[in-house]
């Protein structure tokens, strides 16, 4: 009986710790991330492949605080080899409870900033983006709850991009990062 109680307590502890585990850690932001979405809206019958490629870090210091900006590029393609991938420069600010993702979408005429806010405590994210006319399919940027991993976060974000944007709008326009 005693053993069962101990085992149950241990199990509860593990579950508690697991549920509080941080989804997003600094180290992850400095590593390349990859994922795939099964059914593409932009490219019917194909999958969407993405890579978030880490580029560099810039340190911001104020008094005793430092905050990093992580520069990266989001690549989206309809093939695993990432041939002719759409490349969107991005920047991530990882703060105390929020992580801000910005991606600079260039259609050749203008650059528009896509923003994603991720709440690390409550594990939800939301997107704010008004794309260029002609590049939008839908405007339904959903608030998504229950994000338990970095891969889940990025996959969900790219799935919304695929659903709401005409991704080919941004082909061959790499758009310079706003640094």
């Amino acid at each position, binding site marked *: 009986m005693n053993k069962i109680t101990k085992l149950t307590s241990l199990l509860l502890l593990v579950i508690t710790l697991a549920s509080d585990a941080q989804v997003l850690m600094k180290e992850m932001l400095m590593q390349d991330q990859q994922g795939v979405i099964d059914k593409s809206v932009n490219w019917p019958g194909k999958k969407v492949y993405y890579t978030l490629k880490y580029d560099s870090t810039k340190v911001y210091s104020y008094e005793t605080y430092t905050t*990093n900006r992580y520069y990266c590029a989001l690549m989206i393609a309809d093939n695993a080899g990432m041939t002719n991938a759409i490349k969107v420069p991005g920047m991530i*600010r990882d703060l105390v409870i929020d992580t801000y993702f910005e991606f600079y979408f260039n259609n050749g005429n203008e650059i528009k900033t896509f923003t994603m806010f991720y709440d690390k405590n409550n594990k939800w994210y939301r997107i704010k983006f008004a794309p260029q006319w002609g590049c939008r399919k839908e405007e339904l940027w959903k608030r998504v709850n229950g994000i338990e991993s970095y891969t889940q976060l990025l996959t969900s974000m790219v799935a919304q991009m695929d659903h709401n944007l005409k991704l080919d709008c941004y082909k061959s326009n790499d758009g310079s990062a706003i640094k």
Partner: protein
Amino acid sequence: MQRSSKIKSKNNHDPMKKPHFALIPVALGALIVATAFYGCKNMNSTSGSNVTFNTKSKAATEFPNKMAIAWVDMLLDQVRFQRVGPPPAARAMGYLGVAMYQSVMPGISNGNSLEGQLKDLKDLPKADADKEYDWPTVLNNSSYLVCDEGLARFMGPNTQNLQNLRDNMNHMCDSVLNNKEVFDRSKKYGEDLGNAIVGYMQTDQFDYTRENNIYESPSRAGDPAHPDWYEVTDVDKTPYEPFWGTLRPLGLDTSQLCLSKPSDPYSSEDTSKFCMFCMKLYGIDTSFTEDQRITSLYWADCPVETFTPPGHWMKIAKQQVRKHNFNLAQACELYCYLGMAEYNAGLAVWKVKYSVNLVRPKTYINEIMNKPDWEPYLETPPFPEYPSGHSGFSGAAAMVLTKFFGETEFIDSTNMVIGLDPRHFKSFDAAAEEAAWSRMYGGIHYEAAIIDAKVMGNCLAKNLMDNIKLGSGTDETAMAKK
């Protein structure tokens, strides 16, 4: 003055009466006695020489600003770490300003005590005029107690960080001073003063607002006559600080808080001015420029991530204190005015918020404009829309800073703390204007809430500085001449 003018006017307006020369010495004597009586009675509340000025001690003007800055920084760090919201943060700043200024006041030749100027502030301990004090030590020990009280609800009393700063600063003062008697006396006076101000804080209604915070949020569904009412959402079930407006202001009475009323009533008619505001807001949102986007992020000043809106302005003030090399007396005078103005701004804004109870743009755009998935760029906070808190805080702060430093260009680097680039401003008012409009770019306020709140902040800060006389020991407090 009033007594003399009465005598004068009586004589002037009675031409039938001839002067009785024998009474002149008597009248002169009476005048001297009256003047002396009146002058002494008001010595503490008008500008001029400080009757409590302590000539035995080094003047507060001869100390650097280091101790004041250290406590402002400590308070703002704790505000950030302990997730203190803007109104309670401003309250802690207000009382810290009071404690810091009152601590050094006897060391300021033209200083005026806040006792008798702030409602209910009385029986403060006095420095012994015949004994020497070290003003930074006094400030250190009073500020510790007041910060501890101001933050106690958020981090518990006797927090180690505050104690460490107090102890380190005491150690430094003790070493520099090298006079145990003066150090001990100053420490004791600081503690007595701090405890008295803590006692004063405890009578401002704050505790009442914690313990009686059962708030019935109005419901649009429950009363169809009020489609304009703000209502808590499923996400934000608890409206934030519904009773904050009941607190006692510092240095102003309620009539001087410049409480605003919405100039354009709520309307769901698409030709109404109110609806025009919303369409403008929605339009800005969908055609967002990069500058508007960055502006809304820069002034978001979210609790936890940043120092909150009033804290952001305290940091801007700090940059100016350093730039102009303010001495301790000047820094304390500035932080006292600024802290009290920010506290009053929070109080005034929250008072109006929960009397108007206006619905937020997100609800209006989702429901009335039939854009159910629309989200603002910034997260909608859990309290009514009108008037805008940040605009009120910014209007008040800009008024105080302009009085001290004039119309001056400056670069603000505060939000490098969240990885944002410094921004350049032509004046404090221009910065306040930008901060105010950032709330519209962020999609959480209509135009009227922004304009009216900034005017309200300007107005109550001006009233505060007209009402309350402090003193910095210098002829020209304002650095505008620079």
